[in-house]
């Protein structure tokens, strides 16, 4: 067990190293010379060769790639992710400024998705193969198939513009959080609904449920206490794995609702070719994502030692 744990930690470290290397190396995909492309993007005009040279020297782009990577990584480990080209602020403080908004949105979205998914999934399973079940399934299919940015605009149109219930954009109050959280939570809710339903169907057939029923336990208690409690274990694992999916979605949803957050920060940085910010956001999200997956894996392993240990990494999305 201990040896298996160490092996996992070893491959976890390999993955983190690979992630940081790729994150740093991504910039070099820039067609042509990164320095002059970045400058052209920033000033909207071709830079002089002297300016390009100066830029290269200032940001260490004239060093060999490996040297650049190693010094970036050693700084990053110490919490220094460089300085934004566009805003001349340290990337780390930008992240600290924007991360809470995204975290708040992600948690709210996961909360809403659980609120939607657990009742729907349970009811679908209890009324298995009836019109109630089929309606639930249909709504879940719709939920995963809608582009989230489109859903966002539909919600803005109905709730903000027509009904005037919520503010259109921004962040700060509960009112600002409701629509983005619903937008972001819907797809996750749909995925979770399917799993809750499947997991409940299985639990309702288990022997302990029969035992409870034969003891004369009321059906409501059988469903909520006996079956649901056991059905929720795989659901909680999936909630963890959905975190990466939520981070993906947050990028677009933040743009739709013009919410300051990691997503809007990243999109702006991509268009401005603000390399240190791009690297910082990607490094932080990927590290968070892979760590959470690892924790979920370990937790489910601890809960159910029969499970095969899998390698690190997330689900299909």
């Amino acid at each position, binding site marked *: 067990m201990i040896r298996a744990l160490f092996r996992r930690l070893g491959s976890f470290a390999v993955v983190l190293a690979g992630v940081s290397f790729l994150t740093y190396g991504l910039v070099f995909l820039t067609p042509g010379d990164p320095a002059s492309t970045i400058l052209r993007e920033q000033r909207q005009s071709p830079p002089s060769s002297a300016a390009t040279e100066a830029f290269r020297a200032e940001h260490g782009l004239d060093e060999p790639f490996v040297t650049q990577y190693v010094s970036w990584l050693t700084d990053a480990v110490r919490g220094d992710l460089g300085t934004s080209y566009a805003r001349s602020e340290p990337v780390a403080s930008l992240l600290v400024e924007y991360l809470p908004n995204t975290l708040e949105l992600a948690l709210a979205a996961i909360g809403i998705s659980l609120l939607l998914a657990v009742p729907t999934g349970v009811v679908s399973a209890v009324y298995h193969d009836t019109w109630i079940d089929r309606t639930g399934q249909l709504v879940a299919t719709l939920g995963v*198939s809608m582009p989230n940015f489109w859903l966002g605009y539909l919600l803005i149109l109905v709730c903000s513009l027509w009904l005037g219930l919520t503010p259109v954009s921004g962040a700060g109050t509960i009112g600002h959080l409701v629509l983005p959280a619903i937008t972001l939570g819907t797809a996750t809710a749909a995925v979770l609904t399917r799993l809750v339903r499947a997991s409940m169907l299985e639990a309702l057939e288990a022997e302990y449920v029969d035992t409870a029923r034969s003891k004369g336990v009321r059906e409501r208690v059988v469903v909520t206490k006996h079956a649901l409690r056991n059905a929720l274990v795989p659901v909680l694992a999936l909630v963890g794995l959905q975190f990466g999916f939520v981070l993906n979605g947050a990028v677009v949803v933040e743009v739709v609702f013009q919410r300051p957050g990691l997503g809007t920060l990243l999109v702006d940085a991509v268009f401005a070719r603000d390399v240190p910010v791009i690297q910082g956001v990607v490094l932080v999200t990927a590290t968070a994502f892979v760590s959470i997956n690892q924790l979920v894996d370990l937790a489910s392993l601890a809960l159910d030692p029969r499970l095969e240990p899998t390698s*690190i990494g997330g689900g299909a999305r």
Partner: protein
Amino acid sequence: MSDSDTASDRVRLAASRFIDAVRERSATRPGTRLRSNGQVRLGGAIVGTLALVALVGPLVAPYDPTAQVLEARLRGPTLAHPLGTDALGRDVATRLVYGARVSLGLALIATGVRVVLGTTIGLLAGVSRGVVDAALMRLVDIQLAFPGLILALVIAGTLGPSLRNVVIALSVVGWATYARVVRGAVLGVKEQPFVESARLYGTPNRRIARRHLLPSVVSPVVVLATLNLGTVILAAAGLSFLGLGAQPPTAEWGTMIADGRTYLRSAPWLITAPGVAIALTVIGCNSLGDGLRDVLDPNHLEDGKRRRS
């Protein structure tokens, strides 16, 4: 009786034998099961219709998707323009039809690259074991460590905004899941007696991979790829919406929503039509994929459809 007569007779005979053989085969399990599966039929109908629209639509569409008619700006749905016109007076229905071509085309290309890349790496890892396997699987772990859309966004943005770069980005990010699935399937089948005996006979590894292992990984890959089409379409629409994909004046669904959002209150049809188109396409792909999985992989756990025993 001339030579040509006997020749055509022979062709006819061969054709009827072929048709009989096809009928006989389709009466056996997978074909009939496929056709009697409701989800496969629904998904197939949706995807088929869309493919037809993408192929034929542009030939019959009455308008030019990029022709601006400024005096007909932001018209609501009318007989001449069933889905209205956009801010530049372009016919929304026509743009929707051309957009189908873009979305389906890029989804097919990106998914195709993912399948080829992922299957190759998965086969290689599963067959070789040892150091090669470990190295390839760490590569898979590293790829899956990035939230997909974020990685695709950064790759597409770094390469520069264009439809081609979105296709490249979406091709590079999604292959790892295939590699994992294929490797799993290979490991599962490798210990089977028929593979063992092939090995005992001294069949070369490459031949074992092609003749014995590849066929058993085909069905999980087909299921995954079908479901992936929908995911890729959503991701591509999202990237285009952010401004990284199709550039104006190309008609693309995500871009159409991005263009329409300015007129959310005054012309809500501008975002409604492309949104419905994307959702419908993804529903089609997902439904087809779920149905295929039910037919091809009856032991799958997540569908919750296992019969009460």
